[in-house]
């Protein structure tokens, strides 16, 4: 029986073998695992013969929680899954509920544009975390501060519009909770003005860095066939040469009216994934600028009080508004029976929500298609034959978020 056929032991024991192979457990308490990931690796010398990621350390039962909340409340917990880009989760969820309600067309244009704007901002913020922590994994600590500075400014905007830095619950079924506050667009202009110089600095610091290039080029190569077979989406798929992006293939919320490119590479290694993400940040900023220029006026919440709360200022003066508000808050609304799959392009790939309603005011089932789970699973494939020291590079280049992997 060959050694690779034997079941992987699940303990920290280093198993003595006669042929210099040993089993090494990395994580779950390891700074470069970007969360709580355990990778049980079988190594021969310094080469990985087999790697088995063990997940579940952050399982919090979010899907179960969401089933026990109102439709209006579940958007709060789904934001906790991909905590680096909460808005893309909320986006997929509210779009799905709107499809079930059949009210997609009733969402005002301004709300749709602002949703895209905020989602693209959170994509940049998420990639900032990936870039900063990915650099730290390789010993490049300076980039981290520049990245987190940029991210902090985006989180300031989140706080300014939604009231919270990370989980604003700003996207609601039917539109947005509130219009953006006065002064938001000026702050956004400041961000746009500082973004490009900052990215030039970051690229100069990291992209051309010979040490980082040495560590990333030809490491963790993922071919297009493997990426497709393993369900990899997002930048990791596009770095393998497949230009699949939900925003282009299945446009939602008005992405079809925007002019942007899908950056792709063909090498499929960690460096290609690195470059694709950097290019994606620029594309996101170009989308933000387009929306900034063409932002429509008008309301940000649908006017139908069957699924949307009445404007706050009417509650004190209108009996009907008060009743609608009370009903909205105390028992939410009923969603017609049915099921829907609602995908969006999150920073890590296709984030999809399979929602089932039985006609009640709570979802019967909220199933997330977690992009990180499938992206991380492929580590089993790409780690084989690489050096154990490159494991952190490969994990970093796949950019998993464990709130989403474990849910």
């Amino acid at each position, binding site marked *: 029986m060959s050694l690779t056929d034997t079941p992987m032991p*699940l303990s920290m024991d280093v198993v003595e073998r006669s042929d210099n192979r040993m089993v090494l457990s990395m994580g779950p308490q390891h700074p470069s695992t970007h969360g709580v990931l355990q990778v049980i690796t079988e190594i021969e010398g310094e080469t990985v013969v087999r790697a088995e990621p063990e*997940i*579940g350390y952050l*399982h919090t*039962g979010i*899907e*179960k*929680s969401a*089933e*026990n*909340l*109102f439709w209006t*409340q579940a958007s709060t917990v789904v934001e906790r899954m991909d905590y680096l880009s909460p808005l893309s989760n909320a986006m997929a969820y509210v779009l799905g509920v709107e*499809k*079930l309600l*059949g009210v997609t067309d009733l969402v005002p244009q301004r709300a749709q544009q602002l949703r895209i704007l905020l989602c693209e901002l959170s994509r940049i913020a998420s990639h900032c975390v990936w870039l900063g922590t990915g650099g730290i994994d390789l010993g490049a600590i300076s980039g981290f501060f520049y990245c987190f500075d940029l991210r902090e400014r985006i989180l300031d905007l989140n706080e300014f519009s939604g009231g919270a830095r990370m989980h604003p619950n700003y996207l609601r079924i039917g539109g947005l909770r509130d219009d953006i506050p006065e002064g938001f667009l000026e702050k956004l202009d400041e961000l746009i003005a500082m973004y490009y110089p900052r990215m030039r600095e970051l690229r100069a610091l990291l992209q051309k860095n010979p040490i980082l290039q040495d560590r990333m080029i030809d490491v963790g190569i993922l071919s*297009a066939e493997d990426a*497709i*077979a*393993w*369900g990899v*989406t997002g930048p990791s798929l596009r770095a393998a040469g*497949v*230009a*699949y992006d939900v925003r*282009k*293939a*299945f446009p939602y919320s008005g992405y079809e009216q925007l002019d942007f490119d899908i950056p792709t590479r063909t090498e499929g290694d960690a460096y290609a994934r690195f470059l694709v993400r950097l290019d994606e940040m620029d594309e996101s900023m170009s989308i933000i600028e387009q929306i900034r220029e063409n932002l429509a006026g008008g309301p940000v919440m649908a006017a139908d009080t069957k699924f949307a709360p009445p404007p706050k200022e009417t509650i004190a003066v209108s009996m009907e508004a008060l009743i609608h508000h009370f009903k909205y808050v*105390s*028992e939410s609304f009923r969603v*017609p*029976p*049915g*099921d*829907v*799959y*609602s995908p969006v392009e999150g920073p890590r790939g*296709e984030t*999809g929500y*399979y929602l*089932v*309603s*039985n*006609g*009640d005011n*709570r979802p*019967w*089932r909220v*199933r997330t*298609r977690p992009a990180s*789970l*499938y992206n991380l*699973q492929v580590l089993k*494939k790409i780690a084989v034959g690489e050096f154990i020291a490159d494991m952190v590079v490969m994990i970093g280049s796949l950019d998993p978020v464990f709130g989403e992997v*474990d*849910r």
Partner: protein
Amino acid sequence: MPSSQTPPAGATAVDPTAVRPPIDDARIIRTSPEQLRAELTALKNDGFTMLLDVGGVDYLERTPRFDVVYHLLGGITTAQPERVRVLCGVDGPEPTLPTVSDLWPSANWAEREVFDLFGIRFAGHPDLRRIQMPDEWVGHPLRKDYPLRGPALERTPRPSFALKSNVAAGTPAFGKTAAALQRQIVAARSHVPNGDDSVAAAHSGSDPGAAPTAGDASTTELAAEKNAARGGQLPKDGAK
């Protein structure tokens, strides 16, 4: 006002997927466990090269009880990809489906998760272990008959002095345990041990010495009921 902790009102005997509004999100195919492999193999040969997700749904009162949902994506390298959703009903005390992890390696973890959280087995899966929950966990949390806050197996019988407290239980109990606790609390507050009238008559005066004995007695009763609850109510898991 319904609390956020109350479970959804009523299970669904109807099938939401059968009465869904016309939403253009994917082509939908419903199949049976016998046809599943053939159906998915044909789809894969038809160009649906990516298996995006495998998820489960528990409809509780419907027959078949569970749906396993396969989300497929085809024509991924073209400008117009296509989506297909394959729903497969599965039922029985040990619901089992054939694995597709040999067709798409992405199904490996997805099927493990469906097994872990719904208890649906996948015959032929190379490594069907729990993935999210601890290996020694009992029960499948996403089943609709699994309580939201867990089975509270770790609850120890409350000490007799706690029965005098006017603070209710720390961890919410459920089912028989909850009923037993409620009876205990009522009995302790009214100094009526076990709610038994004859004993109540004996101790109708305010005799403080009677309370610890009463507490012990009802604690034993609670333990007995808890054992019954463990045996009777919790889903058995023969996987480990």
